[in-house]
Each structure stands twice: as structure tokens, then as C-alpha cells.
């Protein structure tokens, strides 16, 4: 009986936090998204805000663009993170492991904004990279490296690397070396080992890393805006614009929920395609 009381006492702050700061505001936004913007008059219930997303091509196209670029980011991040994770978990000396993980963590000690500005100083037309390229005679004219889609994806990959490496390290660590050795003994080549032993074993880590990276990229605001420049309309920016520039909170709330629904749908589809269940991934 007493244990039960203690359980509820300790749980209460968490529940209060969830209810007051997450559930209630979301309900408020949900209600708002079904109301029309009608200053002064009676704000009736309506689906107009959701309809506009599908009717006005710019909105759903921006979403599609955001989703595709986030997917590309996730794939690139995986291909970069997998060897790193494998090296840390299997190849590096045990003493080095902690040090290597800390090296990965180090950039996160400064805020994302500062890191993005750092990239801008490096890549801008009058920036550090251009200076050295010209100095060494590789270029005659400085090139603007900012404000391109490739730069934007690079920034997104950079800022989400860690979230892919960490889950991968933990699954690779749990892989029994004997399996790889046995495969060698039985005459398997390198690619077969990767494809039939390592990757299947790492599936839960890959999936959870991919979900995190995908969601972080989809919900990122600063990196696309600052590095992507003039063609970089990201869906989050559109939500921001509805709230801030157009004063249309109802529309913004509807976009917010569409982002939540559509991204959940994409992840659900991804899990189905790779034959996994969310429960396995989370455990």
C-alpha cells in the first residue's frame, strides 16, 4: 500500500509535466486547427485549414520536398555512421572507445546556431575554405558554397550524425565476434558478411537511429533556413510563417498536426517495409 502511494507521489510531477506542458497545449492547438480565422465573428468549426494544405500546391509540395530531403539525409547519415560505429565498437582499442564517443559528442557542447554560423563562416564566398582554395591555386574565382541544397543536406547530416552513431554502436557491440569468424571460416566474402550477418543483426539500431535522424531533420528549422538560403523553404518554416508572418494561428496549427500525422505515416511505412515493429526498435 505504502509502496503504491510512493509510486504515485514520484510519478505525479511527470504526469503533471506531461499534462500541463504537452497534452493541454496540443489539445488547444488541435481545437484551433479546426476553427476558421474570423476576427470578431463567431469562429465556427471547419476543415478549411486542412483542405488548404491539399488544395494549394505550394504547401504539399513543400512538405514532399522536406520529406524527400530528410530521407536523403537519413540515408547519407547511415552510410557515414555505420563504419564509424563499427570501428568504435569492434576495431578500436577498448580504452579508446570512450574517448572516441566523447569526440563525437564534443560539437554538441555548443548550440546548433553557433555551429551553423561556423559553417557559414567556412563556406561563404569570402570565407575560409574559398580563401585556401584560391591560395593553393585550385580556384581562380571564389565560389559561393552556401545557399545550395547540397550544403543544406551536409549541414543536416552533420548535426544528426551523433544520433545515428550512438544506437549503432550499442547494437554492433552486442554482435558476437564468433559469428563473423564463423562466416569467414565458411568462406563468406566481406560483402556477404556485411549483408547477411552484420546488417540483419543491427536492424533495430539502424531503425531507431533512422527514426531519430529523420524526425530531427524534418523538424529542423535553423539549418535549412541559414544554409539553404533562397530556395530552402522547409515545412517548419511554413508553420512559422503562418503563425508569425500571416498571424494565422489556425492554419499554422493545422500544418503542425499534418506534419505530425504525415511523418508518423512515413515512419509507419518504413517499419512495415523493413518488417519491424516499433516495440522491438524501442526496446
Amino acid at each position: 500500500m505504502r509502496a503504491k502511494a510512493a509510486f504515485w507521489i514520484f510519478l505525479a510531477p511527470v504526469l503533471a509535466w506531461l499534462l500541463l506542458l504537452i497534452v493541454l497545449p496540443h489539445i488547444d492547438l488541435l481545437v484551433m486547427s479546426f476553427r476558421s480565422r474570423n476576427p470578431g465573428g463567431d469562429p465556427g468549426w471547419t476543415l478549411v485549414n486542412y483542405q488548404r494544405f491539399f488544395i494549394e500546391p505550394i504547401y504539399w509540395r513543400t512538405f514532399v520536398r522536406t520529406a524527400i530531403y530528410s530521407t536523403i539525409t537519413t540515408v547519407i547519415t547511415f552510410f557515414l555512421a555505420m563504419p564509424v560505429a563499427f570501428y568504435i565498437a569492434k576495431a578500436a582499442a577498448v580504452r579508446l572507445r570512450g574517448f572516441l564517443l566523447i569526440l563525437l559528442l564534443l560539437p554538441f557542447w555548443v548550440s546548433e546556431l553557433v555551429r551553423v554560423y561556423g559553417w557559414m563562416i567556412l563556406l561563404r564566398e569570402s570565407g575560409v575554405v574559398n580563401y585556401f582554395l584560391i591560395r593553393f591555386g585550385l580556384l581562380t574565382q571564389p565560389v559561393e558554397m552556401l545557399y545550395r541544397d547540397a550544403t543544406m543536406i551536409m549541414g543536416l547530416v552533420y548535426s544528426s550524425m551523433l544520433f545515428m552513431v550512438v544506437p549503432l554502436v550499442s547494437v554492433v557491440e552486442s554482435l558476437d565476434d564468433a559469428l563473423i569468424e564463423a562466416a569467414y571460416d565458411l568462406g563468406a566474402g566481406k560483402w556477404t558478411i556485411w549483408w547477411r550477418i552484420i546488417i540483419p543483426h543491427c536492424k533495430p539500431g539502424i531503425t531507431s537511429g533512422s527514426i531519430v535522424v529523420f524526425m530531427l531533420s524534418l523538424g529542423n528549422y535553423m539549418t535549412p533556413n541559414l544554409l539553404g538560403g533562397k530556395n530552402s523553404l522547409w515545412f517548419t518554416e511554413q508553420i512559422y510563417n503562418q503563425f508569425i508572418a500571416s498571424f494565422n494561428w489556425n492554419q499554422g496549427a493545422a500544418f503542425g498536426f499534418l506534419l505530425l500525422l504525415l511523418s508518423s505515416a512515413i515512419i509507419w511505412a518504413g517499419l512495415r517495409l523493413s518488417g519491424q515493429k516499433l516495440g522491438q526498435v524501442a526496446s
Partner: protein
Amino acid sequence: MKKIVLLAALVLFCFSQAAQAETLKILTWKGYAPKELVEKFEKETKVKVEVTYSNNEEMIAKLRATRGAGFDLAQPSQDRISSVQEEFGLYQPMDFSKIESALFVASMLEAVKKNTLVKGQAYAVPFCWGTDGLIVNGEKAAGASSYNDLLSEKYKGRVSYRVKRPTLIAMGFALGYKPFDLYADPAAYQAMLDKVEKTLIAAKPMVKNYWTNGDALLESMRSGEVFVAMAWDNGGWKLHGENKAIDFVAPKEGALGWIDTFALPAKAENVAAAYKWINFMTKPENAAYFTNQEKTATASKDANAQVAADFRSNLERCFPQAAVDNIKWYPPVPAKLESMEGTVLDKIKAAQ
């Protein structure tokens, strides 16, 4: 005994904290509350000043989220007050008996009063004014003097402006419309916006970047990455101080004139201190300090005499009488136009 003394000390400590803790929370633009003036004000009045930097749109959003609470003083532009006041009731009426009217340029005080009138009550007094026009690098883009130069093939990849409403208005003027006369006619305004949208999308290859941060734009002009930009006059004059080749140019279609104000949020907690700040900032010596620092003229009547010569020469150089007469002052914006403009701005940004 010891405990009682300790308790008494603690209580005293708390009270003294409370006495000192009278604060004035200002929601304003970057540079509008210079550190030296804040310190001077704190010394004079014993009120602690907390400053939050923002812009017109975010000011409205912040105040709307709290229905006008959280700040004691805001500084929106005069054209962005009456419509949001009508729709959301963010501000409280100005009590002109608490304003030292003699400190202000009378015509500007009247104009702002008139433009922020809602149901017979005025909601703001002027603080400072300036214009939106072109900043031009004379060595690289000599002779750029029209908003149309922002679209010119000559400056391909060397142009920068914001994706915000002033750009749409400026382009409206450049295309021969009279945007402010169309405010009352949404259909005609939409037709103009459609044309502006097409023009700006077609001119996208000319653009280096759409700037969002004033300091970042000045950096691009300074490093010679951008030749022609649409921006505020004070930025142009700051650059002119460093490099004589770069200067502000009042475009021949007319610079766009804005007045930033003082307005009291509806649930301001320390209105008395807010009035003190308004009168403090409008005193000639303080207003002149601000002008010299930020290269922005104020609504303070007698500040001119104390303004540094280089600022006055800026005005004389860039604004001969004809250019002053040609300034297009923003009238109050009807609420409906902003969401029309929002869609157009999104389309311009998204276009490839």
C-alpha cells in the same frame, strides 16, 4: 536568539530584493535600448530594465500569445498597430497626460496618434523613424537608383533583399502601382501581388540570398559579396562610415518611410516606468545619443542640435528636399492583406 536574528536578516534581505526588483520589461528592436542609456535610466529611476529583441511580426505574436502580458512596453511600427489592436486587443490606450508632449516633434506625434486610432483612442507615440531603400556599393554598381535594379541582369548573384512585406510594396511601386492606394481594395491588391510574385520569381537568379538578419546583410555588403540590397537607411550609413564607396540611396520610386513607436501592452505591469522610459528616451540628449549610435533619427524635437555632424551630412546627402517629399509613408495595414501577402512570400521563397 541567533535563529531570530538570522530570520530577521533573511526577511530584510528578501524585502530589499523586492524593493530593488521593480523592473521595466521592454520588447523592442535591436539597438533601440543602447546599454549606456539603459544604465543611465537605471541610475536615475532605480528601475531595472530588461530588454527583449524582436521584430514587428514576432512582437505581435509574442503579445498575442499572452494577450498582451509579459512586457511593459513594446515598440512596433505605427502601421502595424491599429489592425492588431482591433483584432486581438494587444495594447492599452496611451494616456497623453503622462507624456511630455513638448519633447516631441508635434507633427509626428499627431500623425502617429491619428494612425493608431481605434475607437477614438490613440495607442502609440513615435520614437524614431527611417526609411527602406537601397544600399549600393558605388564601385561595383554605380548608378543603381531604382527598385528595378534589384531585378537587373547586370547584378546577377549580387543582389539581396528580405522576403517580407516591404519588398512586395517596393516592387509594387517599381511596377508602377500605388500599393497604399490599393489597401482598401483587396481584389486590386491581390492583382498587384500576383504581378509582383511573377516578377520576383523570374528575378530569382539575380538574388544572392534573401537576408533575414541585418548584421549578416551588412557583413555581405562589407565583404563585397553583395552590390545592391534593399535595406534600411541606418545600415547604409553605418557602412558609409567604414567605406565611402557604399551608401544608402533613396530610390527614385520613393524610399518607404516607417515610424517605430512606443506602445503599452494591454496587461503591462509597470506602466509608470514605461512612461518614464518614453519621456527619458525622448529627452534631447538621450535621443541624440541614440541617433549618433544607431544612425536613426528620432521624434525628439530638440535632439537635432546635439546630433553629430556626420549624421546630418548623411541626411543632407541622401535626402535632398525632393527625396524627402517623395518618401512613401506606410499607412496602417488592414489585417486581411497580411495573410494574402504571406502566401505570396511563401511562393517566392519556394520557387526554384
